[in-house]
């Protein structure tokens, strides 16, 4: 029931997810938190334009998870190094625009680390639920 209540408040979190490989991991230990997760598949974390993340918050995401291969182990050899460099620069900008960093998570999970992936989603969805809907950001947008 709890999950339902929260859903009526419309807190969806949106992980941007690289490579389909991750999705092959069969996820048995998943919890109810997953109901608020919507995955956007992209070929590589290197494809992620930081504006995607802003857009997601704008469209009502309460949290964003960016997940892809470990540095050095990118399916496309070095894509995630680019992604990492971009995020380091981008993070301060996001903080500046008023996004609570507890709502944005970057994590490296390889296709063979199903358990890690599950724990990650469980933990982050729990945390985002605690934070509740990200109304501040949406209000900001509406005020404009």
């Amino acid at each position, binding site marked *: 029931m709890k*999950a*339902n209540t929260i*859903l009526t408040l419309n807190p*969806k979190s*949106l992980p941007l997810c690289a490579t*389909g490989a991750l*999705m*092959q991991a*069969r*996820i*048995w230990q*998943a919890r*109810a938190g*997953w*109901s608020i*997760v*919507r*995955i*956007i*598949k*992209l*070929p*590589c974390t*290197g*494809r*992620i*334009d*930081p504006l*995607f993340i802003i*857009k*997601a918050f704008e*469209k*009502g*995401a309460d949290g964003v998870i960016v997940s892809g291969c470990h540095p*050095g*182990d*990118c*399916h*496309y*050899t*070095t*894509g995630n190094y*680019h*992604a990492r460099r*971009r995020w380091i620069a981008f993070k301060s900008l996001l903080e500046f625009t008023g996004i609570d960093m507890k709502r944005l998570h970057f994590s490296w999970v390889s296709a063979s680390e199903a358990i890690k992936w599950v724990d990650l989603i469980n933990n982050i969805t729990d945390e985002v639920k605690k934070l509740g809907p990200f109304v501040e950001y949406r209000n900001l947008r509406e005020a404009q």
Partner: protein
Amino acid sequence: MPRIGVFVCQCGTNIASTVDTKKVADEMAKLPGVVYTGDYKFMCSAPGQDNLKEIVKEHKLDGVIVSACSPHMHEKTFRKAVEAAGLNPYKCEITNIREQCSWVHHDATKATGTLKSIDLTRMAIERLKKNKSLSKIKIPIKKRALVIGGGIAGIQAALDIAEGGRQVILVEREPSIGGNMAKLSETFPTMDCSQCIMTPKMVEASLNENIKILTWSEVEKVDGYIGNFTVQIRKKARYVNEDLCNGCGLCIEKCPFKAKSEFEMGMTQRKVIYTPFPQAVPNIPVIDAANCPKIQKDKCGACAIVCGPKCIDFKQQDAVITEDVGAIVVATGYQLMPNERFGEYGYGKIKDVISGLQFERLASASGPTGGEIRRPSDGKTPKNVVFIQCVGSRDEKKGVSYCSKICCMYTAKHTMLYKHKVHDGQSYVFYMDIRAGGKRYEEFVRRAIEHDGAMYLRGRVSRVYEKDGKVIVQGADTLSGNQVELEADMVVLATAIVSRDGADSLAQKLGIGYDKYKFYNEYHPKLKPVETVTAGIFLAGTCVGPMDIPESVSMGSASASKVLALFSNDQMAREPITANVNRMTCNACWDCVVACPYNAIEKEEVKNRQGVVLKMLAKVNEGVCQGCGVCVAACRSKSIDLRGYTDEQVYAALAAF
């Protein structure tokens, strides 16, 4: 208005138990542009696909959504079905409502699962509205292959490709092909002599008209992409004219200078002009320039005097040659971890502590002792030999975390070889576990213990030191709980199998991945074990990780069959997920050029009719582009986009969220 059809799959009860598929379909019917919706028990079944085809035609659909399992499972299936119904296959998108939704929901009321499926499907529909028709990219194929590394894996690959009627260039960095297998004495589990089974293959490779062997050579540069690689190969100066040399060996005989023999693992000397071993292929010597007084200070020149065909050329230089190939097999093999790293075992300090490969040479009929087991320090026959397994393996701190896999087997083999040659000798083996998985392998180890009397002690060795001409080995026997101290005449270390020096730099040239131990990464460890992430480059043998001869040979043959399959077409089709540049807005900042991990972006000159360069533009080489999209996020003027994952598509999905 688009005409989209939405098909929601129940996957038996896989999806239907936590998702109300009918409700998902009904909800989707309300969206603009959706003209048909329905839910089915099994979309992927033959009737399911036929139904899909009929509906596409009947409702004149121009886009199809299948909400079902992961696209890894059936994206191909449904795109094919849609294509058969006359639609562009890239107008079909899959929504994953099984792995991402039904399987992670346990809510029997189906409320959460249904809601999420509706969201996911809606996002996919909005994305689909932005999909463009795409067609597979056609690339011509050069039907010649390059094999790097002439060990057993590379030789096997070369022979199989040649057998399939295609030309092969086999590049080997040593003066002869053969690799590590040429050094082995007899081989487990059948105990056939390594040379006897290896040399016929080497000769076969050298006689095969389709195989061009380049020894004493290394790959310097690799450009291009599947079907169209251009490779630069450095032929190191041999100081012997290969075309003239008839392999008589007079030069070797007359050369007055010697150096340590690499092939004999430093246990004996070879001449300065040499072939590594008598059956070398090609049977053409090379001069070890660093040790040759003629080349260093213009003294000697004996070889040139005796050489009949006059093929010695002290002025020879390295030559770089270029070859065009369509596929590459990498088979660069392994080496042993330098034992010097194991000071506690006395290697390098104590002469009678040797490595496994050195023992192979001692046991080999063509080795430095003619196959008699005699210890290096004084040439005496050792009566007690201690073998230590897992030296450096399975020990993250001192060596590597992995198991070297073949040492259990070759140590058992060594105890047998030893017993067969020194009847009154006793062997001891310190081991951690015995790993003898494989056909007839366990029986082989049992034979070493039961028939040839090898004494196996479970435990680690803590120290090896020299005392009165003996090597004292101290260790623990964990099964009896006692400390043991053995007086040995010789100690053999089964040191870890590691990747070749320079394995990383070769991988970088090729654009293939490697792990933290510099073993090459397969595309998929289970389902694509000989492919790499770079299309057209395949792997064989121990450059992937420790393995024995049968496995290396299997991988060689497997790679060859992949190469031949590729060469069976004149052109190949590739997924059209590639970047393309907007020629109107690109401002030639080259950010994308720098960012692309595959060097797929060229700098194009746009000229007017007079041939004057008007401007520069980024241009994606579709054959090379792998579709990662790194360039897209790098371009600040938004002038480059990725087909199949365009900004438009991603934003459409985000907006529908």
